[in-house]
């Protein structure tokens, strides 16, 4: 479903972020991408969501070769993905409900559908009673769940999560992972970048380790190796 072939990414200042990445992710897989800070995890995700383009190589997602995507087609490609950003990227001045509705409005969803889908997603992440609250009034775990809810709003085939357990205590973090597992069980491919050792060990799912821009380890069922 997702295939990276010989992908290099060299930034304009000469930093080599990724080097010869070959990676295949199947449909409905749950993949943890691990590695130290600065190893290239974030660059990999940026390339996957077409925020950056690779210097060399090709990435095919579904039927689409995203390295050859015209800029005007990028928005339509992004609507097929759900992305949970490391810094959440929620709008601070609007409520939880509006944050999710906004993402759907932007991608041209009819208001009728938005009214039906948003409450459903909020109940999936357990935030129905927080729908009229502003992000700053929420706890860390709750904010993360809003981010997940927004990522799920378009019912994406692929969910990409960049450090979803970043600043959370172990118990809350595991709560978030359980939501991701549930989404995965419902048929969505989940790609998660993390350096949370405990969680990776407990998950026992596929682990891809990235070190200095290359894939150093890739195993179907594994723990944290670095």
């Amino acid at each position: 479903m997702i295939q990276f072939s010989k992908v290099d990414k060299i930034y304009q200042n000469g930093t080599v972020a990724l080097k010869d990445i070959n990676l295949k992710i199947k449909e409905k897989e749950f993949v943890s991408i691990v590695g130290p800070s600065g190893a290239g995890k974030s660059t990999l995700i940026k390339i996957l969501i077409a925020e950056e383009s690779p210097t060399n190589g090709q990435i095919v997602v579904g039927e689409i070769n995203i390295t050859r995507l015209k800029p005007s087609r990028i928005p339509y490609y992004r609507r097929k993905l759900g992305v949970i950003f490391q810094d959440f990227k929620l709008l601070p001045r609007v409520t939880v409900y509006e944050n999710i509705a906004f993402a759907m409005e932007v991608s041209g969803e009819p208001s009728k559908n938005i009214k039906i889908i948003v409450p459903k997603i909020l109940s999936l992440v357990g935030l129905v009673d927080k729908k009229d609250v502003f992000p700053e009034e929420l706890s860390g775990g709750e904010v993360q769940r809003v981010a997940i809810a927004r990522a799920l709003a378009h019912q994406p085939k692929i969910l990409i999560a960049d450090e979803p357990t970043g600043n959370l205590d172990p118990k809350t973090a595991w709560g978030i992972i359980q939501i991701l597992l549930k989404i995965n069980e419902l048929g969505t491919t989940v790609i998660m970048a993390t350096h949370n050792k405990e969680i990776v060990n407990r998950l026992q799912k596929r682990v891809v380790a990235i070190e200095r821009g290359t894939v150093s380890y890739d195993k179907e069922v594994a723990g944290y190796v670095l």
Partner: protein
Amino acid sequence: MTLAGIKRIFKMGARNFWRNGWLSIAAVFVMVITLFILSLFVILNIGVNETVKKISEKIDLSVRVKDNAPIEKINSLKTAIGQEQGVGNIYFKSKEQAWEEFKNLNEKNKEISSELEPGDNPLWASLEVKLNDPNKLQKIVDIAETEQYRSIVDKVNYREKQNIFETLVKFTNFIKKAGLSLTIIFVGISFLIIFNTIRITIYSRREEVEIMKLVGATNWYVRAPFIFEGALYGIIGAIACFIIIFTSVYFVSPMMTKYWTVISQSNSMDYLKDRLFLIISLEILTGIFIGTLSSAIAIRKHLKRV
């Protein structure tokens, strides 16, 4: 683009406008000034042009021809003047015709008619010239006064009116130049202010814009609210300007009427009312043009990575 999408764009643009507060007011204010000057310029131009036209219709040139002038020479002068641009009409008035006209004019004045004998005709033959373009006056005079026609031309009658006329022409040209320069300057100022306002809007909403892009908004969807915001400055400015102009015309009109009736026997309020729609449309279109163009450029410059 769906209907819901268009509605969302308008809503977002209007919200930006509202949230910008004083910035929006400044942008609208400078737009009003710009459009007001533009309208004033257009109205003055119409007025002055009309005045000049009316006056130039009244000022005709009369080239007085000597009694013994041969008809071929007169015809050659007539052709020479008739060929000039800006000459509307030219005809030869013989000594006899002039006399008839004079008699007709003074028919009721018994005293003069009785004094005149059919035998003595003190009048002269002439070429009567009607000018369409007052600027060509001097040119025609020059032709009539060349060496070639000295033997037949006695005098060109225009001088007594020339001073007023030249002043008027100079004034018209001044109005046109000053109005145009002022308009250009203010179009520039409002362009800069709207450009800056939109830039600040983009800056204050950069987070929102980034999120929009990341969750799959098209470029057009991101940009359209800013363009609409710019157009809004133009539309609101034009409406405000319309109110100001209509009120001014309403109050100034009675004073204008006096002047206007002397010139063209028509009412200034009616005259402007006929053109008010034109002025309003011009204002709104200009406002929208300035507003959208400046935001479009601001977006191009500041949303490059979007």
